[in-house]
């Protein structure tokens, strides 16, 4: 056996051992309550690229996508049913046009890659939803996103909601508009009054329950216009780690924090 084959075999054994260890850690973690819905504010891609002297406007975001695949794999193995990713905010459109175009092209590339994976049966029960003001995306990306949602429609193990062209303020205005127009269209002589449920039905993120845990990377202590309506009872966890550097132990730590506070969070939900 030559050196390359030996290295390949060693890598396989090492990966198998790591996988076993990870599954054991998750088994222990699952002895306690697991969040039903975890949201991620994926901050730090550009700083990662700068830190590692990576060239290219999308270099940091490419590294960020690798992190997405690992995090989703971990969430699926733990058994978390819903994950939301804050991929691109409405305010991010104010960045340099070249950077925005680069990020959109990268998103299209990754969506098309994921469609191929889904069609080949490699997506393993993951259902993908795109939410946000999708009309502000270019047509190719919009069509690709729609296709990915269709090919993964039957998957039931993990629902991944990707927030693109999203912000809470935009979401609230959109939901108010939609619900008002619906109320006007569907009523006879009854007084027309909006309820909270009417508006919440029309929110972009109405496909998922409210998050139990929000994890923000990059060290920021703010929600950056992300799900402020839905996070009244969420544990907000912030880590200085940049998104492409987020690993298994960061996720485990966040879940351990959630488990410590579970009694309090349950009590708050009952008060509602």
């Amino acid at each position: 056996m030559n050196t390359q084959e030996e290295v390949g075999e060693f890598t396989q054994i090492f990966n198998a051992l790591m996988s076993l260890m990870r599954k054991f850690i998750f088994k222990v973690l699952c002895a306690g309550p697991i969040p039903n819905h975890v949201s991620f504010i994926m901050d730090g891609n550009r700083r990662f690229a700068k830190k590692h002297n990576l060239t290219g406007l999308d270099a940091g975001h490419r590294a960020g996508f690798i992190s997405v695949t690992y995090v989703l794999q971990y969430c699926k193995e733990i058994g978390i049913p819903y994950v939301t990713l804050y991929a691109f905010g409405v305010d991010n459109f104010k960045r340099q046009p070249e950077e925005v175009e680069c990020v959109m092209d990268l998103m299209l590339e990754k969506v098309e890659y994921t469609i191929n994976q889904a069609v080949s049966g490699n997506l393993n029960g993951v259902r993908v939803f795109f939410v946000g003001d999708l009309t502000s995306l270019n047509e190719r990306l919009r069509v690709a996103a729609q296709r990915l949602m269709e090919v993964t429609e039957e998957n039931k193990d993990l629902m991944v909601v990707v927030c693109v062209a999203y912000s809470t303020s935009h979401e609230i205005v959109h939901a108010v508009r939609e619900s008002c127009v619906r109320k006007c269209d569907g009523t006879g002589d009854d007084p027309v009054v909006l309820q909270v449920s009417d508006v919440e039905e029309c929110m972009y993120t109405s496909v998922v329950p409210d998050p139990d845990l929000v994890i923000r990377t990059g060290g920021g202590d703010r929600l950056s216009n992300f799900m402020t309506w839905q996070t009244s009872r969420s544990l907000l966890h912030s880590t200085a780690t940049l998104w492409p550097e987020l690993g298994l132990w960061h996720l485990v730590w966040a879940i351990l924090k959630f488990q410590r506070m579970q009694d309090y969070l349950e009590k708050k939900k009952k008060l509602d």
Partner: protein
Amino acid sequence: MDLNQSMRLLSSWIAQIGGLGLDLLWRFIHLVVSLWYIVSGIIEAVESYAISLGLNKKYSSINIEKLRCLAVVVDIEEARDVSKVIELLQWLRTIGVKQVGLFDSQGLLKKSKDMILGTVPGSVLSEEIGEKNSSPDQNPLALEFISSSDNKEAVMKAANILLQDYLKSSRPENDKGENFFTETHLNEALRVVGENVHAPDLLLVYGPIRSHLGFPAWRLRYTEIVHMGSLNYMRYGSLLKAIHKFTGVHQNYGT
């Protein structure tokens, strides 16, 4: 008992023992995590006292002008002790904060508004600032009292105003309301129902967890949220540290 039954029983025992083992390991891990929190709490307390005593020069001067509006979220159980809230406000006044929004989900602090305004020197309701031309205090502390009714309920009231305007308007068929329902319109409608739409720069959370507990969503977009721990164990040094850290934050607001 045949072999299959014995195997099933054995598997069941092994599963139960395995489950018990995992449960014990989980509890042990949480014990270690709790010890970590105790140790880091002690370190934080020592640091806080050092800051209060002025031993750390870094916190001796704070650029308080950067903090235009501060909000304080108090867990409902802790909001019952109004004396602690009053003490906190007095500390904030000492630091030089000029505007504070006080939030608790059930409006307990709103009910104690008169007591708080009567006890904290130089405090006035924020809506009264500007109405009184001569204030006895040159540097009043403007207070705003907020609860959950200022969150989703307030947005509903504003939305219903917009809805009524929309119904009365002569709109084309198949109109989707894009000219009627915008951020500007919603902001204006919120002002009409008496809501403050300004976003606080910094939100200090006093309670068991870091959560905004239902603070008005419309105002929280880029607010820095800092968890301060329990109000019962609040420390002046920790408050100084949180405000100092905020003044060093640079936000790019998504750009």
